[in-house]
């Protein structure tokens, strides 16, 4: 126990004496400050009109307008800077000879990697206090923050950082030098970006690979959804990356053994990803319940006892599929107990030049206990009554739904400039300077 505590202190001291965390805090503070000021400015502009018209106010959600863009700075920092901090932490041990001493002290490579990971995870949580302070500042300025959605957003960025740290530690173990490790991890994070952009713009095979992008993994949480699958894939990815980092870190392990372990790790991650892809459940954390049906409708749908099958004859790139998927199917998947969705159309059926010649293209067939019905609509106003009739479910009574009020807020000047551009950088500088001059007296 004492052995571990002492090594923890050593790891933490090693992290704090470096310049990397100081630089990261400085850049993060300035970035968050600028993004927050810009977001507040745009939100204020929108709010001016909304104050005159309550209908417009409903569209003003601080979650989308303030919090998501502000945390976007944390995403940038996690993608472009955090990997270097993590690589430094592991790379300097290899290059300085500390790794050989640690192994000689009887530390297992897994424990070495885990210590580094946990120190970096703790540091990332502290870094995230910078955008968190923007949310607190927003509340202090009279703004509104919806707790569950904000918690989901924070969790998403925290987990994204953990994945990046784990991948960076793996790259640091794989690469013989910090430069090689940096290239490897940037290939993963920037490659994710490319996949994300390519998937959104290009379609085709790139769009099929896009779900593997780390950026895409963060997107549902930015939309206020917490997918159950993410709670499996992210920890799995982190654990496998750390296990492989430990495997590659040990210079005494034969390369064949390292290779076999890596293949097994990749296979495990793929299995978890494939398994998680089948889990469609997610939680809607938004205040306006934008990803959910009204509560009365959800109660009615949750009472459907049998298996409901929906066959969709639409291509994945068809905008109607996207409307149907986002507006109906995802919502149904969260509440209908036994639901199966099948898409039965080949990609070739929908080309860029126009729709397919298949007459049945665009049909959505609903089957329940030997009965079926068909619709081409993607609107809940048409589909829900169809499902009620097909499943013999009594339609819910039209209750008074509480309309989302919106939270317009007009601020005259950009807030928090001193906090983000002066106080936080000075605080980081003071802490760094104290660490540099700190000279613990031997007992």
């Amino acid at each position, binding site marked *: 126990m*004492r052995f571990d505590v*002492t090594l923890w202190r050593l790891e933490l*001291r090693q992290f704090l*004496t470096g310049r990397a965390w100081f630089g990261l805090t400085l850049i993060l503070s300035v970035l968050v400050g600028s993004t927050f000021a810009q977001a507040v400015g745009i939100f204020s502009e929108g709010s001016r009109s909304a104050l005159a018209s309550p209908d417009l106010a409903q569209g003003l959600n601080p979650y989308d307008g303030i919090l998501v863009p502000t945390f976007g700075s944390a995403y940038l920092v996690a993608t472009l800077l955090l990997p270097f901090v993590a690589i430094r932490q592991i790379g*300097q041990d290899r290059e300085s*000879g500390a790794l050989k001493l640690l192994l000689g002290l009887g530390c297992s490579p897994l424990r070495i990697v885990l210590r580094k990971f946990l120190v970096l995870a703790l540091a990332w949580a502290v870094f995230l206090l910078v955008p968190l302070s923007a949310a607190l500042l927003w509340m202090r300025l009279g703004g509104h923050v919806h707790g569950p959605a904000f918690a989901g957003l924070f969790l998403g960025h925290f987990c994204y950082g953990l994945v990046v740290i784990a991948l960076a530690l793996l790259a640091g173990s794989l690469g013989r030098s910090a430069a090689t490790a940096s290239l490897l991890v940037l290939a993963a994070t920037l490659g994710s970006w490319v996949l994300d952009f390519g998937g959104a713009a290009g379609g085709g095979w790139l769009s099929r690979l896009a779900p593997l992008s780390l950026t895409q993994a963060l997107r549902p949480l930015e939309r206020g959804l917490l997918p159950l699958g993410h709670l499996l894939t992210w920890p799995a990815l982190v654990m496998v990356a750390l296990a492989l980092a430990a495997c590659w870190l040990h210079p005494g392990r034969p390369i064949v053994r390292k290779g076999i372990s890596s293949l097994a790790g990749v296979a495990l991650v793929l299995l978890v990803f494939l398994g998680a892809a089948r889990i469609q459940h997610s939680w809607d954390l938004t205040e306006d319940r934008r990803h959910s049906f009204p509560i009365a409708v959800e109660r009615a749908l949750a009472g459907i006892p049998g298996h409901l099958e929906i066959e969709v004859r639409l291509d994945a790139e068809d905008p109607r599929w996207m409307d149907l998927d986002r507006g109906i199917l995802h919502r149904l998947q969260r509440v209908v107990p036994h639901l199966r969705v099948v898409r039965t159309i080949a990609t070739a059926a929908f080309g860029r030049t126009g729709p397919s010649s298949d007459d049945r293209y665009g049909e959505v067939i609903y089957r329940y206990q030997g009965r079926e019905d068909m619709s081409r609509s993607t609107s809940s106003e048409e589909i829900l009554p169809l499902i009620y009739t097909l499943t013999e479910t009594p339609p819910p009574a039209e209750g008074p739904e509480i309309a989302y009020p919106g939270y317009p807020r007009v601020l005259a000047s950009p807030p928090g400039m001193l906090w983000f551009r002066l106080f936080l950088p000075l605080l980081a500088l003071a802490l760094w300077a104290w660490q540099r001059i700190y000279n613990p007296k*031997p007992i």
Partner: protein
Amino acid sequence: MLEARNLSVRLGGQPILQGLNFEIQKGERLGLIGPNGAGKTTLLEALAGLLPLAEGRIEHRVQLFYLPDGITPWADLRVGELMTTFQRLHHREVGERKRLTSDLDLEPVQGKRMRELSKGNRKRALLALAFLTRAPLLLLDEPFDGLDIHQARRAMDLIQAQQASGRTLLLSIHELRQAEGLCERFLILVAGRLVASGTLGELRAHTGTTDGLEEVFLAV
């Protein structure tokens, strides 16, 4: 205490060590000598488990600690802080650390960072860390490299004291006079092969010389 059988190491496809067989007896000071590129450091790293073996096996029933040459670990931490860390890691008494600090003349550099130390000071600080461990077997790569004659003699005295306290030492030493003055038995490594081993007397008999280790080494 440690037994190497048919030990071979390949790096980048090239054989570096080939078919080495030797034993390290408990409580001895064993000198590993050989020309540059003979594979001394590779052998120490292989014994410490830091290099995969191409063939053979190493059996040791005790924990060992390997101190590589030319390293600057935890470069931003101070000497005193590191020594305290090692003292705590190995449940050493404060007095033991202070005695080592004094014996190795490390008081003036206690507040300095590892990266700020001269080569000799760094070597002495690292020796202190090695001595603070409780590993019964110490593998030291060039323990006197960078030390002046006074410092080297003091370090030799400390190594002898370590042996007297029950430790076993395998020392890779470039300077043959130092090796002759310190070690009881020698392994002579040339081009990755163990060409001779034994006490100075045994090596003299083996090579037919009556001189010191330098002559024996040249004769081998």
